[in-house]
């Protein structure tokens, strides 16, 4: 029996430890944190999508009562423009300078041009309206395909709107298409969305006595510290970054924002704490967006349904600048372009294109929802063309369970999977065709499926790093586990959870191994001033990479504990195991020590093994060998009102596999949120700029986030296929629902509309678009 066999905390659907404070208003978000002597900041933002800054007159604003300073771009003597972390070997990526405050030219509506600082939160907003900026308008580039072709330029000195070209392929594409008897081509649009975290961004910069403490609503405090040090020229040891309670991020806070840098700079300049909290309108204008790509996809197959080749050319709308990961996002999808299918030849060609819009970057799924949307729509389109059942076509091309670890044509090794089992489980769970058959008079129902995988657990540094994919960082994780003298435990993780329930999940991992109650395991995160370094929460990495490092640090504790117990009981360490909450000798469970007793012995070191250090605290760093590849099968039924074009999702069933569940309730919650996120994109949400580059959807009245009333209750199940990559066997789950669900909905809408002659439609499936597609098909 192993040491993990004591209390089975792992696998229990415990309620989240963090929820009572969140639900009862006891959490401390950035807006709740104020310090003595604090000043407030407000940004003046460009109303123009593209213009030269002729002049900025700050005199009137600066003269207002309570205003301490007004700064413009050229005042900020920073060491470098804002960071972009991707230097892919052998690929030229054009990176126009992007400053915390625009210097000579603005490139999108919302680009900040001045910073007003004063003693009153309200007065700085009033004063910001008095900064008078003269703009000379320049041609505005909005349409992605036109921008790609040329014409007006976003950055004239680059001579092109094309930022970079990047390809990933494997297998003989030409031979694959030659072998194909049927070829289907589609133009698939994946429109722009916002992260729309309920808590907007906010920053409190406090520079005093030569050190900077910066509190920010961020997903990446450790990166933030690094870049603050580099941008401001402060030694890293004198910078502390804190992520307090963070009310959602969805990737939009995986960023180094100009506001963070500008506030830090101003605090140092004024030697006063300075705070800024984003308004919702600012958030929609100036917090990075996601998706926004057009794919020209081409799939070839034999008549009997064997896929022979798959090619996509992707235009990615980057917006006006490159932020931390802007150009990398479509590439993240390219690694899993062929989804769950064994396709002998696959190629993705990506072109990044500048436009006069807010930059895009990682939003939940980052590249993989786009890739999944493409392949899962193409499979349905191909099935239609072949006259074959869509599930039969899927099954025919699934990678077989025996083939894992499965190396794809792209050279990517999928760790583990059982795709037929996930699909079978889904079909047993819900009879979608029966629901479809019960459509009320005048309504159309359709069924959609999506069988997906994704690549996550972001790490392995050897693959993602400078000489591999080209990210200028490692992507390991770290954890420190401290057993206190009472047996209570504190865990420090380098991840930075903000809604994922990791305080509970990680506590369960530790509790199981130490024989304590998870309630007595506190998980500390989000502060570079405590615990070891880490790299944050994104890319569904926090359990697969961060959780594994917690497990490894805990294993070191267990090892030391066994030695102490063996010494005290005069037994051999190999014979000590955890039985009913005690570390005891195999076969005589009554003679054992609890972890509290062991830590007592460790901290009052009267009787430790010869040469052993006192204390019970361990650190582990972990860099995995491979990514992990969660997968699953989703199915849904939609009901379309053909008179109005309205689409209702009336049934949604999902089977997801993220390896052995540590906390099934938390997994379900992540899947729920993920599905709603994708339903949002498929049916409701859309960031839209008009032809002048003005943002039309700048608040939650126009940017339509779905609420609980707009989605059905979900039927969820799991299969559990362990990953061989980490000792927990786990894979990520934070993004999976979002990755799977948008093609599921879209395919269902097409299925519903087929009797009317509609065979293809792009998101967002708002009622007008659906109605227009029906009208068009009538002609």
């Amino acid at each position: 029996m192993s040491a993990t066999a004591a209390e089975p905390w792992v696998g229990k659907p415990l309620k989240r430890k963090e929820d009572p404070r969140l639900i009862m208003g006891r959490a401390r978000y950035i807006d709740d944190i104020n310090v003595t002597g604090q000043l407030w900041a407000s940004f003046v933002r460009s109303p123009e999508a593209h213009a030269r800054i002729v002049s900025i007159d700050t005199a009137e604003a600066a003269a207002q009562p309570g205003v301490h300073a007004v700064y413009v771009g050229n005042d900020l003597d920073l060491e470098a423009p804002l960071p972009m972390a991707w230097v892919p070997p052998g690929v030229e990526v054009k990176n126009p300078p992007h400053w915390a405050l625009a210097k000579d030219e603005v490139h999108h509506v919302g680009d900040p041009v001045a910073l007003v600082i004063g003693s009153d939160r309200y007065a700085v907003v009033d004063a910001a309206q008095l900064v008078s900026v003269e703009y000379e308008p320049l041609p505005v580039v909005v349409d992605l395909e036109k921008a790609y072709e040329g014409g007006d330029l976003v950055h004239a000195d680059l001579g092109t709107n094309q930022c970079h070209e990047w390809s990933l392929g494997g297998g003989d594409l030409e031979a694959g298409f030659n072998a194909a008897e049927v070829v289907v081509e589609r133009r698939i649009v994946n429109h722009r969305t916002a992260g729309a975290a309920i808590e907007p961004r906010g920053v409190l910069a406090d520079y005093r006595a030569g050190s900077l403490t910066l509190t920010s609503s961020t997903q990446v405090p450790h990166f933030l510290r690094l870049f603050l040090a580099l941008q401001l020229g402060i030694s890293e040891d004198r910078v502390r970054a804190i992520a307090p309670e963070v009310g959602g991020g969805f990737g939009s806070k995986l960023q180094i924002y100009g506001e963070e840098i500008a506030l830090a700079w101003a605090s140092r300049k004024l030697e006063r704490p300075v705070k800024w909290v984003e308004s919702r309108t600012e958030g929609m204008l100036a917090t990075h967006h996601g998706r926004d790509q057009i794919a020209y996809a081409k799939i070839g197959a034999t008549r009997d349904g064997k896929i022979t080749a798959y090619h996509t050319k992707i235009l990615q709308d980057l917006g006006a600048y490159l932020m931390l990961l802007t150009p990398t996002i479509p590439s993240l999808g390219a690694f899993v372009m062929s989804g769950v299918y064994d396709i002998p030849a696959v190629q993705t060609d990506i072109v990044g294109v500048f436009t006069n819009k807010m930059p895009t970057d990682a939003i939940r799924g980052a590249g993989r929802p786009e890739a999944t949307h493409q392949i899962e729509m193409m499979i349905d389109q191909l099935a239609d063309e072949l006259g074959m059942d869509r599930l039969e076509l899927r099954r025919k091309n699934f990678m077989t369970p025996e083939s894992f670890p499965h190396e794809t044509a792209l050279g990517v090794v999928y760790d583990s999977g059982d795709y037929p089992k996930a699909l079978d489980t889904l079909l047993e769970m819900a009879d979608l065709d029966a629901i479809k058959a019960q459509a009320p008079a005048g309504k159309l129902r359709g069924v959609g499926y999506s069988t997906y995988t994704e690549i996550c657990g972001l790490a392995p540094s050897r693959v993602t790093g400078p000489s591999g994919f080209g990210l200028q960082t490692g992507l390991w994780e770290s954890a420190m586990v401290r057993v206190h003298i009472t047996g209570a435990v504190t865990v420090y993780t380098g991840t930075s959870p903000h809604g994922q329930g990791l305080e509970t999940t990680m506590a369960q991992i530790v509790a199981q191994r130490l024989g304590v109650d998870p309630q007595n395991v506190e998980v500390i995160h989000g502060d570079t001033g405590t615990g070891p370094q880490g790299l944050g929460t994104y890319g569904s990495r926090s359990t697969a990479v961060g959780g594994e490092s917690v497990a490894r640090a805990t294993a070191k504790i267990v090892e030391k504990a066994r030695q102490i117990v063996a010494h005290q009981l005069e037994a051999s360490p190999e014979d000590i195991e955890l039985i009913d909450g005690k570390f005891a000798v195999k076969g005589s469970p009554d003679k054992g020590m609890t972890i509290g007793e062991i830590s007592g012995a460790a901290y009052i070191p009267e009787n430790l093994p010869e040469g052993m250090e006192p204390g019970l605290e361990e650190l582990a760093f972990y860099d995995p060998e491979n990514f992990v590849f969660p997968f699953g099968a989703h199915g849904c039924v939609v009901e379309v009102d053909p008179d109005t074009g309205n689409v209702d999702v009336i049934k949604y069933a999902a089977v997801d596999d993220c390896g052995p569940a540590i906390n099934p309730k938390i997994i379900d919650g992540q899947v729920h949120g993920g599905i709603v996120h994708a339903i949002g994109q498929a049916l409701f949400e859309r960031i839209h700029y008009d032809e002048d580059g003005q943002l039309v959807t700048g608040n939650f009245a126009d940017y339509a986030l779905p609420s609980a009333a707009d989605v059905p209750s979900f039927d969820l199940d799991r299969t559990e296929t362990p990953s061989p990559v980490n000792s927990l066997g786990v894979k990520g789950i934070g993004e999976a629902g979002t990755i799977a669900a948008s093609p599921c909905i879209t395919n269902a809408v097409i299925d519903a509309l087929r009797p009317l002659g509609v065979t293809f439609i792009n998101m967002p499936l708002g009622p007008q678009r659906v109605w227009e597609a029906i009208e068009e098909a009538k002609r």
Partner: protein
Amino acid sequence: MIPAEFDYVAPQSLDEALQALAQGGEDAKILAGGHSLIPLMKLRMSQPSLLVDLRQLQDLKSVNADNGQIRLGAMVTHHRVATGNFGLASAAAATIADQQVRNMGTIGGTLAHGDPASDMPAVLLALEGSVVIRGSSGEREVAANDLFEDFLTTAVGEGEILTEVRFPRLEGYGYGYEKFNRRQEDWAMVAVSALVKKAADGTCEDVRIGLTHMGSVPLRATAAEQALRGQPLTAESIASAASHAAEGTEPPADLNASQDYKRHLARVLTRRALTTASE
């Protein structure tokens, strides 16, 4: 989302409120539920110098439903209208946003504001109701037909307070309310209120159709009403009448709904609302 600076008073009587408005001048504004005004202030699209809050005026919260006439104080919330068993008005009020908004927003506020996307204006129009408006020079009753002048412009003048909303119970009428929106709790893309009185022989004795968000003010679908009046209430005659619902309208288009699409919706919703009202 920080409004410009403003002063605030919460008077104890209607006279005090009128006085405060008069002293506050043209930049003074009434605050009722605040669920239209405060968002506008936060966006700085409205920058009143003084807010005169009506929350203390108990008289404006009364509900009176005697003698076939319903009289609602201006500060009666959407929630109370929705749950008051007032037929069409209740059905429409129940579709306003979510429970939180219905707990705060008021019937007087929404009618004085005159947003063509809001639900109650076209309902009052179809009910042929009226409002009572009080100013320093006295009180007047304004018919719904004369209340809505333009986009966000109503007959409620500067320094005036809408105090009461009146509409008949309309015994013998069936009603239907069809609201089409993107999300469950959204404003109407288009909404249609229908009232139908069936004659003993099954024909349509009277019909009134109100259109929401089909123009800069709420409208009556007069062509459709004319087409149905006196006709048998069959599916065919209803469909035929409904096909006239959008005649002469110039609906405001936006990202999610073109003029053509809105006209189409008006026809579909009119057919559905008339069908329900005729059952």
